[in-house]
């Protein structure tokens, strides 16, 4: 069985000693991970390791599509359908940001039912996405599949029962999972699990913990398929639910029509929310706490800058103003949890391209606000096969968004930190509980592990909140308030000749903003500044690292040929690369010129 990937054979490490094109910094080896897998899209990470720890890091987005150029000249009412396809993993969030931007530009207030439907669809997206991220994109950085084969099913059952009263907990159940896993390994076809870093010394869970987590990896595959029927009921399908409209939603509500959402369908939705709550309460959070308890040293590493930005989301009945958002908007700088979050002013957002494969009119050092967004391709990277990009002046298709010049982390940790500082009751309660269980202080939040915990905390809080929105929707239906769209300004003849607007939302991966300029009924310019561009950006004009790059500095690497620790920290951010890179010059078709040159 020499070709059995389960044998954990050692591969030749891709370790470069600094001989690539460009001026590679001197020092220890540069470790390249390309592709970084278990993420959305394509990502390359290079780190320089010195004395067993990361000294410097480079994040490269190696793909782009040019979506903003494609949107130019199109009907702004269509934009949400296009932008939703920026990402199929965080599906739906770009649709929300897009309709909000167009509604903001055209001065359209949406009906209460549309607000509730959007909150519900987005809430379901968070719960689904976070669970899938935890099990299918992140857990196997902490859980050793091969160690699970050594587990005693009775001990695994005892461990499971000590954590929760989830029904799948008998020794026979864990024996069946173990047998299935053993057969899978014996078959020689390890499929998705082939060539993992199994047996790496940084894996610390005991065999029973590993078997428990692997069993739940498989259960979560089943669960997510059921839970996300929530989107199908309200939006026809998932991914890419198809029910948004500028001015509202296309989901019919009517207690007396089987073709509409009725109280009976609301009951189906409630059952799905309960399915979500049960899994989060009895499986996801107990597993998260179990894993965290074996890796508390990761509460002291991978933190990065400690600057956090949340646009906030889930508006209440009186509109999109910051004070009306259930998930608060705000900014916490330099890990300061002791003060109320600072307000967010979208005019202070700028994107830099000094180290990206673009150029700006007027020089590459200044940043540009999205309304002035300009992205001329300036690909200076290699044209043949290459070993490293870390010595290159420019090394990514991602721009570098900054808030008032500062690199900011967005995502679950940013939202939880901002909500915590803002005194959000449920988020505070859950956060304090997690910290107390792990016997760590609030500073532990600023870490790789803190990011993982924050994701779990907000998953539960959002899942709980979904029942409130279902109550609101049901009350409206029973009161015969059935309006789902404000179509007073549906017709372009009612629009101003020149209109500017922006729409903000929170995607599972962080704050998301769309900016649109509409001229004579058509899109003149469209820009999206997305979570992974904030987090995964390259260096800016001040040479400040992006948040991922900064978070990697200081992270230990035990074995440069199997850099598991890099994956742990990068995955804790939940990268989404298709979101991050989709931009090209809306002013001139620069792509074609460069294409001809080469």
């Amino acid at each position, binding site marked *: 069985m020499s*070709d059995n*990937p389960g044998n954990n054979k050692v*591969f030749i*490490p891709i370790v470069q000693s600094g001989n690539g094109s460009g001026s590679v910094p001197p020092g220890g080896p540069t470790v390249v*991970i*390309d*592709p970084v*897998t*278990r993420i959305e899209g*394509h990502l390359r990470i290079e780190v320089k390791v010195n004395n067993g720890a990361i000294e410097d890091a480079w994040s490269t987005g*190696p*793909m*782009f*599509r*040019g979506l903003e*150029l*494609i949107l130019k000249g199109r*009907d702004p009412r269509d934009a949400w359908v296009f932008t939703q*396809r*920026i*990402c*199929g*993993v965080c*599906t739906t969030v770009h649709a929300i940001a897009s309709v909000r931007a167009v509604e903001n530009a055209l001065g359209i207030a949406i009906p209460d039912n549309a607000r509730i439907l959007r909150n519900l669809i987005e809430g379901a997206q968070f719960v689904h996405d976070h669970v899938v991220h935890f099990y*299918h*994109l992140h857990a196997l950085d902490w859980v050793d*599949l091969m160690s699970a084969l050594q587990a005693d099913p009775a001990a695994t059952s005892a461990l499971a029962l000590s954590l929760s009263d989830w029904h799948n907990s008998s020794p026979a159940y864990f024996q*069946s999972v173990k047998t*299935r896993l053993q*057969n899978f390994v014996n*078959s*020689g*076809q390890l*499929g*998705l699990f*082939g*060539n993992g*870093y199994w047996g790496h010394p940084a894996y610390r869970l005991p065999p029973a913990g590993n078997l428990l987590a692997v069993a739940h990896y498989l259960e979560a*595959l*089943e669960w997510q*398929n*059921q839970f996300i*029927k929530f*989107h*199908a009921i*309200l939006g*026809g399908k998932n*991914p*890419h639910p*198809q*029910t948004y409209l500028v001015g509202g939603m*296309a989901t019919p509500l009517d207690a007396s029509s089987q*073709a*509409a959402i009725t109280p009976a369908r609301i009951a189906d939705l409630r059952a799905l929310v309960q399915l979500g709550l049960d899994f989060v309460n009895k499986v996801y959070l107990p597993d998260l706490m179990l894993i965290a308890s074996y890796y508390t040293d990761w509460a002291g590493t991978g933190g990065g800058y400690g600057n956090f930005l949340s646009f906030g989301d889930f508006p209440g009945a009186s509109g999109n103003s910051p004070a009306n958002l259930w998930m608060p908007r705000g900014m916490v700088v330099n890990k300061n949890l002791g003060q109320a979050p600072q307000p967010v002013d979208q005019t202070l957002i700028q994107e830099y391209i000094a180290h990206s494969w673009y150029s700006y009119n007027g020089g590459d050092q200044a940043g540009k606000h999205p309304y002035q967004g300009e992205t001329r391709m300036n690909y200076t*990277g290699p044209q043949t096969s290459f070993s490293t990009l870390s010595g290159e002046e420019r090394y990514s*298709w991602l721009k570098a968004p900054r808030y008032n010049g500062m690199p900011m982390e967005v995502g679950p940790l940013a939202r939880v930190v901002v909500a915590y500082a803002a005194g959000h009751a449920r988020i505070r309660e859950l956060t304090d509980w997690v910290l107390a269980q792990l016997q760590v202080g609030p500073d532990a939040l600023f870490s790789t592990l803190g990011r993982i915990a924050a994701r779990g905390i907000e998953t539960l809080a959002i899942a709980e909140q979904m029942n409130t929105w279902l109550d609101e929707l049901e009350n409206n239906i029973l009161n015969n308030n059935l309006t789902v769209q404000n*179509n007073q300004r549906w017709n372009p003849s009612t629009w101003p000749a020149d209109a500017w607007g922006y729409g903000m939302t929170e995607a599972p991966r962080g704050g998301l903003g769309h900016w649109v300029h509409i001229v004579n009924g058509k899109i003149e310019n469209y820009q999206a500044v997305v979570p992974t561009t904030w987090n995964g950006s390259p260096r800016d004009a001040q040479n400040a690292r992006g948040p991922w790059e900064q978070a990697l500095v200081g992270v230990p690497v035990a074995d440069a040929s199997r850099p598991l620790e890099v994956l742990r920290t990068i995955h804790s951010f939940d990268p989404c690369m298709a979101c991050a890179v989709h931009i090209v010059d809306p002013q001139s*078709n620069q792509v074609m010129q*460069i*294409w001809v040159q080469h």
Partner: protein
Amino acid sequence: MSNQPSIEQELIQRGVTRRQFLRSCALMAAALALPTSAVDAIAQALASSTRLPVIWLEFQDCTGDTESFLRAVQRPDPAINGAQDPSLTSLLLDVLSVDYHETLMVAAGYQAEQSRADTMARSAGQYICVVEGSIPTALNGYCCLIGGKTALSIAEETTRNALMTVAFGSCAFDGGLAAASPNPTAAKGVKDAVPGLTNLVHIPGCPANVVNLVATIVYYLTYKKLPALDSLKRPTFAYGQTVHRNCPRRELDEAGAYGDAKHRAGGCLKELGCRGPVTYHNCPTVKWNDGTCWPVQAGHGCIGCTNPAFWDTMTPFYGGISDD
């Protein structure tokens, strides 16, 4: 590899009874529009097949087709509502060995690329290559790099020795979103980026429906050939009839606005821009998310996502279409 269990054995290990197995074969036959006599052939093929290796390539994509693929993972579990039988698509993980898939695989970096190379060497001519996303050709392909290689070169080397290549989703079909005018990256579908491939199947849709992927693969396992294809290389069992023809809203009065009485009552959405009359797809019959719903049922018009160049030919989405 004599110790590899057959698909039927795998299912039985997972608690699926022989009767349930035959029932899912029958569902598969129905989806493929085959007579009931085909059920035995399908069952025999699945009972004797080992899992097919799959190399799943993602290029200029949004991972929406992968998410659709994940919605196929369902097996009977009395603890989960509504999952009493193995669904049509529940065979997916049991039929396939997904050896390379950037979003889902555990291995990263060099070891990930090693998995792809191993499968290509060990199973030359015996693996399925699924392509998701378009392939950019601008900048000599340097706007989509994986492991330092261009998408174009990876597509060429991986499809060359595949048993079958499936362009899954509209982007792999004809360039899709990235190829929408003015196609900034000169993005192409597989058929144009790697011309001359035999055994190429198109399963367009945005996203594509996993039911049609599984049915195509099961058909191949059963009959050792591709199902009947139309002139665009789409399986006719899935793309043979218009959405409108099978739409339950078809016979009812047309809605004039979203939320009006006729919209709520299930009326036709043609006046609101529905592309169902010009779109060939089994969306209304197989539906989505294990048959839960589909977009027109949920109240929004069809956007025509299985049509060639649909981002240009079907837009603006809310405008009228010629009445045919």
